[in-house]
């Protein structure tokens, strides 16, 4: 629990500001974390959360502001030496573990750089020391197994144990303080009961006097575990509250704010006729459980969720690009089992997938625009098996011109295009296959504002012409603009449907941040 006000805080940020170009990512933010406290940090995507963490990690130099560690002002940006001295440790969502090495090797990985190159490693002693640390925190980890063979929960535990093993103990120099652990979305891929397990570990860390900064999208978890919560919005501090004295609804309004609701964008094409001729039933896989939904004629259906909710898997699973364990896809009178789906079968069924990773999954960047755009339909232009360069160029130009790809010469390398034009090429590539169902993942990631609007129009146009569109995205603004209906995923299941007047960025945010309890109450 927070300690007396006069005691020096472990970490105190005052008036922290950071500008990127014309945008203030952080604007005068204060944050104070005390010893023995679990402090939550909440905010939407783009609110400045990650910038704040990056300032703490010494990655960004702030434009204004002061940082005190254990009561003393330190110079910014923080150096690696200062971070080590003040024992500020980070565990990011990706955990930074090497799966092919053992638990012990990963546990010691931070040490190898510090020891003398040829100094002998006494594995038996190191192993015993690691077991002791694991025992202290009540973890059941075997130092000698490979990380790839342990569960997701065990990996998170290992990453945290590695970060905190010397926090809260007496310090050799006496000036290092008790230490701070920053957890950035550590529970994103964990089911709730396993997340509880991590919370016990966090408590064990604070019981030893260290502080924890817990960054999460998940409101419910944040309320359950933290002592105090700081909310930031649009780079500004909204406030810091004691968790006990607040409600989930208070926090939601702090996160979203009470600005005027923006215009409700109802796309012109939003006239679903009621035909439900695309139907997905009981789709299940590693991160998705029993998802069922329909896409109506003329509709752009959006799916979204927080990190780890599994929504982003859906397009890939339908297309046979990621493994699904069960499920059925109905298009018109046809029925397809999803588990044995392959990209080839999916294409035969009339599916098209535009993945979010354009450089690896969407294209071969070193080949030309023409070659990339024509790939799935290239047989159309072969005469007696022959394809001339000029025919390819002509065909590619006919596909890309409609979508206003610039520069328009299909003989240029795909890599030479901007993000927006690269995406238009991929749209052209797949629209040429005349799909019945178009699956798009993050359609405007890395796309500038002008092209973004063009791509929105294209997607709506495709839907208006009768192709069903499924759009998976974590960009709520985008979903509000392009979709007629949005399904919200939570821990692999569909928990909400947003459409009509509440389909705005704010409406979606509210649903995303609502706790499971609130969802249960409502339904």
């Amino acid at each position, binding site marked *: 629990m927070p300690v007396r006000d006069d005691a020096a805080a472990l970490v105190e940020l005052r008036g922290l500001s950071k500008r990127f170009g*014309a*945008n203030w990512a952080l604007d005068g933010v204060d944050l104070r974390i005390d010893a023995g406290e679990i402090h939550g940090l909440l905010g*939407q*995507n*783009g*609110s400045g959360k990650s910038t704040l963490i990056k300032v703490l990690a010494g990655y960004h130099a702030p434009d204004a502001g002061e940082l005190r560690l254990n009561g003393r002002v330190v110079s910014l940006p923080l150096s690696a030496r200062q971070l080590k001295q003040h024992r500020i440790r980070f565990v990011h969502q990706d955990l930074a573990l090497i799966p092919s090495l053992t638990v012990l090797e990963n546990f010691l990985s931070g040490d190898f750089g510090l020891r003398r190159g040829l100094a002998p490693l006494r594995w038996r002693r190191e192993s015993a020391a690691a077991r002791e640390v694991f025992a202290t925190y009540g973890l059941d980890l075997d130092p000698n197994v490979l990380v790839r063979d342990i569960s997701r929960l065990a990996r998170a535990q290992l990453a945290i144990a590695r970060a905190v093993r010397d926090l809260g103990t007496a310090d050799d120099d006496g000036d290092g303080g008790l230490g701070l652990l920053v957890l950035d979305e550590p529970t994103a891929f964990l089911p709730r009961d396993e997340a509880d397990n991590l919370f016990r570990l966090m408590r064990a860390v604070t019981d030893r006097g260290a502080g924890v900064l817990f960054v999460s999208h998940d409101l419910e978890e944040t309320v359950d575990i933290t002592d105090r919560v700081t909310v930031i919005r*649009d780079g500004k501090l909204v406030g810091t509250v004691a968790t006990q004295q607040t409600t989930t609804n208070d926090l939601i309004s702090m996160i979203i704010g009470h600005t005027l609701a*923006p215009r409700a964008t109802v796309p012109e094409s939003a006239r679903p006729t009621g035909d439900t001729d695309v139907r997905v039933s009981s789709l299940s896989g590693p991160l998705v459980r029993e998802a069922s939904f329909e896409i109506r004629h003329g509709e752009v259906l959006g799916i979204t969720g927080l990190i780890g909710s599994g929504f982003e898997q859906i397009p890939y699973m339908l297309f046979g690009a990621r493994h699904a364990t069960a499920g059925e896809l109905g298009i018109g009178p046809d029925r397809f089992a999803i588990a044995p789906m392959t*990209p*080839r079968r*999916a*294409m035969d069924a009339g599916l098209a*997938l535009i*993945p979010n990773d354009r450089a*690896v*999954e*969407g*294209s*071969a*960047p*070193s*080949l030309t625009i023409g*070659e990339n755009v024509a*790939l*799935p339909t*290239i*047989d159309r232009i*072969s005469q007696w*098996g022959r*394809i*001339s*360069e000029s025919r390819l160029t002509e065909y590619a130009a006919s596909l890309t011109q409609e979508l206003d790809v*610039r*520069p*328009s*010469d299909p*003989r*240029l*390398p795909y*890599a*030479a*295009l*901007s993000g927006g*034009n690269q995406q238009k090429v991929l749209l052209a*590539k797949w629209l040429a296959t005349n799909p019945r169902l178009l699956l798009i993942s993050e359609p*405007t*990631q*890395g796309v*500038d*504002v*002008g*092209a*973004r*609007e063009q791509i*929105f129009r294209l997607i709506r146009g495709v839907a208006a012409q009768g192709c069903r569109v499924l759009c998976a995205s*974590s*960009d709520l*603004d985008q979903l509000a*603009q392009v979709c007629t209906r949005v399904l919200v995923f939570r821990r692999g299941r569909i928990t909400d449907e947003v459409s009509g007047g509440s389909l705005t*960025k704010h409406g979606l945010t509210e649903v995303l941040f609502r706790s499971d309890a609130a969802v249960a109450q409502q339904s």
Partner: protein
Amino acid sequence: MSNSGPVGVSTDSPRLGTDAPSPASHTAPRPARRSLGGWLEIAALPLAWVLVIAVFSILKPSTFLTLANFSNIFGSYSVPFILTLSLVLPLTCGDYDLSVASVAAMAAMTTAILNVNHHWAIVPAIVAGLVVAAVLGLINGSIVIFFEVDSLIVTLGTSTVLQGVLLWISGSTTISGLSPSLVQSVIGTKLLGIPLSFYYGLIICVVLWYVLQHTALGKRLLFVGRGRTVAKLSGLRVARLRLGSFMMSALLAGVAGIVYAGITGSADPTSALSFLLPAFAAVFLGATGVIPGRFNAWGSLIAVYFLATGITGLQLAGAASYVQQLFYGGALVLAVTFAQLSRRRETRVEDTAQ
């Protein structure tokens, strides 16, 4: 994720800003016609060959600049020529095949044993040799593809196994006395002063160029090598294409082996192996010209004979035989260095476009 602040929401703003060229300049940033640099890149390799010929013609007009010499170069280097072509397909698909020289020797040895020791007629013996080669390609490809192992390591291993098999089935001796009709149809008959063996390579070269450059299959193979994930997600049968390229590669290596047997009139268990490095040097050097950045048939042809001309010229000028190794080794390192440099330039284009 867009910056979700009020600034990021203003999607109505009409500025088609940071995105490549402005609407006014509808032309490509690079002109559609090739620049001088582009032409130079395409023509550098052929020009280098012409230059080498010119230099040695001036230095040694009496021995170098003769029909007999060129006939000799084209004929005797047809084996490395065909072996180089055999590498084009797997490399295009992103796979290394280090076993081509051993496969060539296996095809030659099979043909020789059947023809000489078992008195098969030469044609069935050759067919048997080619079948053995294709089967070896199938084995290589199956291991690489179905167990998802690195092709470099697998073919290094199978190549060594084959060397053992060669010594075993041949009794570690050269098998000579192959049917004279084979010798006649490979090296004995000349067309325009050049032995037929060169024309076999030329036919393969034309077919390979046509398939890679002018068919849908060629484009698919290219995608398998350049972006295996996008190839899969675009519905290509990636495993089948790779397997096919391994088999085709082995079959062409088998042809190279049989041509070699025809040139020497015999088959021996080890000498074909010395062609492996020259083939790799030539195929990488060939990828720097004609269609820069892509493994291609004409580039391979020019690279093989550029290297051959240089070596022959130097030997006529009195250089010792070790000049071969200097030449081939140096060419391989230079070629991959060039390729890396031009790839770096390509990525720079990408960076500025973002």
